[in-house]
């Protein structure tokens, strides 16, 4: 299964505090351990703070663009990575070994990617056919 490993933003990361060399090296070392264990790191990136971001709000036919920064730091993310793992327990066990991604208190969230297989129970041959044709377009 694939999971997104989401590093939550903090006040520091929102201020654009740069990562120390030690913290960077610790992250590199952790990444190497992941690779040696055969965990597929399929994608990932750190994000610039929300002052560089934009939001598009939808309301009926209206689209409103809101410039960053955004206030609710706890709801913001500072980086992500997509892993291929056996199950979410494996992802949890690995994230616990990660160095703290931030200088102070921080949080990493793990969310499984929604794959069609996850909904397989509700799939009938007919919906499968429709799904396949949708992909064809």
């Amino acid at each position: 299964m694939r999971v997104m490993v989401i590093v939550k933003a903090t006040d520091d990361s929102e201020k654009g505090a740069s990562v120390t060399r030690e913290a960077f090296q610790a992250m590199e070392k952790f990444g190497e351990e992941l690779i040696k264990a055969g965990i597929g790191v399929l994608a990932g990136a750190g994000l610039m703070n929300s002052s560089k971001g934009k939001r598009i709000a939808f309301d009926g036919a209206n689209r409103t663009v809101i410039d960053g920064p955004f206030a609710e730091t706890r709801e913001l993310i500072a980086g992500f990575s997509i892993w291929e793992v056996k199950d979410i327990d494996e992802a949890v066990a690995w994230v616990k070994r990660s160095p703290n991604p931030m200088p102070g208190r921080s949080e990493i969230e793990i969310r499984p990617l929604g794959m069609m297989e996850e909904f397989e129970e509700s799939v009938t041959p007919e919906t499968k056919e429709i799904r396949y044709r949708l992909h064809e377009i």
Partner: protein
Amino acid sequence: MTAGETHQAIEAIFRIERARLIARLARIMRNVDRAEELAQDALVVALSEWPKTGVPANPGAWLMTTAKRRAIDAIRRDRILRRKHDEIAQELDSAVDGTAEEVEAAINDELGDELLGLIFTACHPVLSADARAALTLRVIGGLTTDEIARAFLSSEATIAQRIVRAKKTIGKAGLRFEVPRGAELAARLASVLEVIYLIFNEGYAATAGDDLVRPSLCLEAQRLGRMLAGLMPQDAEVQGLLALMEIQASRLPARTGPDGALVTLTEQNRGRWDRLLIRRGLEALARAEALGGDGPYALQAALAACHARAPSAADTDWPRIAALYDRLRAVMPSPVVDLNRAIAHSMAFGPEAGLRLIDEIADVDALRNYAPLPAARGDFLFRAGRLAEARTEFEVAAKLTRNVREAAFLRARADACG
């Protein structure tokens, strides 16, 4: 970490450590079976201790120390069983000390090296290909015999017996669980790569059963390939195999239609190809090429990459594919490669070029009664406007193939020749 860890969480930690634990213990005990038992014993202790004490800061070292104590006890018991009590009293002390030192040395050894040693042992050429695959999935992949049996559509008893025999063979051969050095390394590595690719192909082109593909086996092989690439980053063929598997796996979502039938490469909806895997595959291929990769796996990966890079089947870089087959033929001579080479040349340089090459291999024994040969020849003749001859070839091919869908397709092509 907090106390009250659930069994589930502890087992997840154990899965991460298991292969390395077994690798170290096998090197000390020279016995895979005992190593597996000792690792399992350490898990049992962890399951009773950790919920009370919390997970230790370095769970891998904790598990190893626990297993090590049991290993020393086991060695001591063995010696007592084998010899009379009074004879061994003095010897025992020094022997146990020696063992303890050996254990310490093993702990301080490069982790990666030990895991590699176990991989090389599980894939040793003294074992049959089937035994190597089963043992590798068991001790490195951590699959249960039941899971392996289901993956290979075999019975659990068969797989269990295969693994038991493989372990005995390793013991009899006196293998030392080390990474081979020098000239031996290349030959032994070829055996490791072969096992991983065999597991991948068993999933990708399932040779038995109702399903055409079994993605779980592909995933296990990719995982092994990723692990090996992490442990041996400087080997071009290791990177080549990983690239080949990642790119081929990227097509899995497009490879079967809604009715479960196989969809050929040119017919696949490329929008369903997994871009993340393609990117990973192309990166591994770039590393293989930077390392001078010109071996069978790197070349096959380069071939797969030609398709992965083409936005549509019509955009395929056939001259490059033809050139790659020219090189592949030199390092991996096989009649099937020759046939594919003829097809690539026909696509790149026209049907006459294909006909010239296919006529060179028309009498090869290995291709006798091989449906793809007349099918390809029929296609070249058809495109060259030689319809009557093309019809005959398609009819021959339709009779030879055992696949019902393919036979229908070939008969339709024969009919199209008028």
